[in-house]
């Protein structure tokens, strides 16, 4: 769990740093990013919001709004294949298809924290 916390906190910090460059990343991300579906992402993201809605930049359940799109996709795939630890996240990610992950990554990268 310590590993998870450090990793997620690191991700949040990375996301903050990456925010300024995010527009350029989206434009250069290629077909994998273009497959994201904002409306599907909005629906799937509602499951994430139950826990992540109030997340701070660091913490056991961090903020993921505005996080870099590629980074979200990388993390979700890591939880899906269980290379990243945390049973709740693994359980949430294991039924996500690639298109679901890309849609979630698109939604959260484009959406400000409510």
């Amino acid at each position: 769990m310590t590993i998870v916390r450090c990793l997620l906190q690191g991700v949040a910090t990375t996301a903050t740093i990456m925010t300024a460059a995010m527009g350029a990343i989206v434009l250069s991300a290629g077909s994998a990013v273009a497959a994201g579906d904002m409306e599907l992402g909005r629906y799937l993201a509602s499951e994430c919001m139950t826990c992540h809605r109030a997340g701070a930049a660091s913490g056991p359940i961090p903020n993921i709004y505005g996080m870099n799109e590629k980074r979200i996709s990388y993390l979700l795939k890591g939880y899906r294949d269980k290379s990243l630890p945390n049973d709740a996240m693994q359980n949430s990610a294991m039924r996500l298809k690639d298109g679901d992950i890309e849609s979630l990554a698109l939604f959260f990268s484009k959406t400000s924290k409510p």
Partner: protein
Amino acid sequence: MSKISRRNFTRLAGASLATLSTPLFAPNVLGQAKPKLVVIGGGPGGGTLAHYVQKDAAGAIDVTLVEPQRTFTTCFFSNLYIGGLRNFNSITFNYDKLSQRGVRMAHLMAASIDRDKKQVVLAGGTRLPYDRLAIAPGVDLKFDSVPGYSEEAAQIMPHAWKAGPQTQLLASKLNALKDGDLIVMVAPPNPYRCPPGPYERVSMFAHVLKKKGFKKSRIVILDPKPAFSKQAVFAEGWEKHYPGMIEWQDPKMHGGIKNVDPKTGEIKTDLASYKAALANIIPAQMAGKIARDAALVDPSGFCPIDPENMKSKMDANIFVLGDACIAGDMPKSAFSANSQAKVAAMVIRSELAGARAFPARYSNTCWSLIETDDAIKIGAAYEPGEGKIKQASGFVSQKGEAADIHKQNYKESVDWYAGIVADIFG
């Protein structure tokens, strides 16, 4: 920019197709009058639904939330208040943010549902017409399921299974105990709100007794069930933190609850009698009254629903969310209600505003605190299957886990609580 434009085009095209494919609702979509959603019950299910439809429909649907109370105290995390780990204000919320976001609040009791006319009748007679109605009335208690118990008896032997004054009464009685006093909990039979809740509550009782330095007090749980949620890890935690303090009895051990007497504090089972200084009686449960009065329940006392969309099997214009519904493998929990509301919100936006629809998917996680910084959890993902909401995968805390995992669980639960109450109340 060209990629973003294509995405927008796809979305708009999808919306148009959805509109054309739902001609039944075309008059509403075309704007002669805004379609109307009425939601009864401002807890985890109803609050979340009102919030999400208002937010995502962006004004295309008129949302009214009927909730008689001006504030709502959450049952989830109320055990932490009982354990002295949170104050009462921290688990109590108002509807100001939902109102500011555009949800119309009706702080009146919903007296009845006129299903034929598609109207909710409020106390005082005002009628609210609806295109879609969602009810999330929670549970009512079957006081007579425990011999000798009643609504009046609950003032002396609190149930505290609906958060509010009962929760405060239970906490005050707990804090007034002397060393050597006996606590007896009569646990509820299945199905009931929050399956691990009684056992987290006992943990918080023990936490308070231990913190006071009591050496002689004991807690007896008289359970009508042969087993309970996360039992092995609860038992391990009790032995670790409160050795010898908690005794759990299944029906084979107590033989059945014969009577509770609020005047004497005596609780009789088939095999023994207990004199409780604090009795916490949690009776059997059923769907809230408005669901029963509207004939939305089956003989179980709860509401059957279509697992694809959370619609009542009795009336396709009515959605039933949360503890009142029969949610298949999902437990009755705030997390479940919140998850079910998001499926319903997606379906309602599709039917009333032409938004795209997606396959239903549900999830739940329940954290339970055993002692400070020692929490366990259980969770699962669910999907429609075999005519019910069926568990697709899951996880549960295991015996022998390291202390830092349980500490992390507790921190997660605190973050989750902050998230879900913002999801419900705006």
